[in-house]
């Protein structure tokens, strides 16, 4: 039963991203939905994927989002509409709970035999799938250079000259 509470909190995070007026509340909703997505993955047995999601998403990408929104977003955004967000969340949760009534099989949740599935499928990435690892690393290098060139534009000085 607690698992379904965590799934509804995942839905709350996503309605916060979708419906909030201010992008700061949307970033909070993205953090909440990725956190409870990690909880959902852990209870299915994919603990390593949950760790990856937490580290890379919350520890990497959302930090980059926070810094670049401090650099470029509005300083005084509009007042939030949290009441409407909660109303939309309640509507969506009633829709999910009372139309889709099949619960998961109890053998898939908290299964003690499955927590090595993600590790054993990731090890292929280093062995036979070495080309995928190389291409992924090269893509990250290209995107690093792209981000630097795009955000600097044509000036040779520091980024913000206030």
């Amino acid at each position, binding site marked *: 039963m607690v698992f379904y509470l965590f*799934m509804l909190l995942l839905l709350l995070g996503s309605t916060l*991203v979708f419906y909030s*007026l201010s992008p700061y509340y*949307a970033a909070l909703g993205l953090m909440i939905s990725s956190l409870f*997505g990690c909880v959902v993955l852990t209870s299915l047995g994919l603990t390593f994927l949950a760790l990856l999601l937490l580290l*890379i998403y919350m520890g990497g990408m959302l930090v980059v989002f926070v810094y670049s929104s401090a650099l*470029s977003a509005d300083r005084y955004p509009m007042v939030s509409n949290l009441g409407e967000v909660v109303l939309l969340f309640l509507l*969506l949760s009633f829709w*999910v709970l009372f139309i889709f009534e099949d619960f998961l099989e109890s053998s898939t949740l908290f299964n003690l035999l499955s927590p090595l599935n*993600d590790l054993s499928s990731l090890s292929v990435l280093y062995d036979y799938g070495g080309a995928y690892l190389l291409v992924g690393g090269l893509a990250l290098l290209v995107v690093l250079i792209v981000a630097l060139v795009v955000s600097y534009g044509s000036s040779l000085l520091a980024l913000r000259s206030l």
Partner: protein
Amino acid sequence: MNILSAVLFSLFFLGIIGVVINRLHLLSLLLCLELLLVSLFLNISTWSQIHDELVYLNFSILLLTFSACEASAGLALMVSLSRSHNTDLLANINLLQT
């Protein structure tokens, strides 16, 4: 269809609608795009764990990597736009309008 599939489907659908219908800020569009990619990651991971196809767990990790690439490219574009237009609001980015 069970409740987990319904919740993950609604995450995906909210992400798509949030990218298509966006009212105010460019940053909230990028955040809805990130929600879309997180929902894809959760969908592929849970589907492959429930149906015992372990190949696609590998793919979902690469998907996470490329979503990080896309997010950083989108954020660099947003920073560059906000430097030239001095704002983030989509209604003010209208230099190409007739």
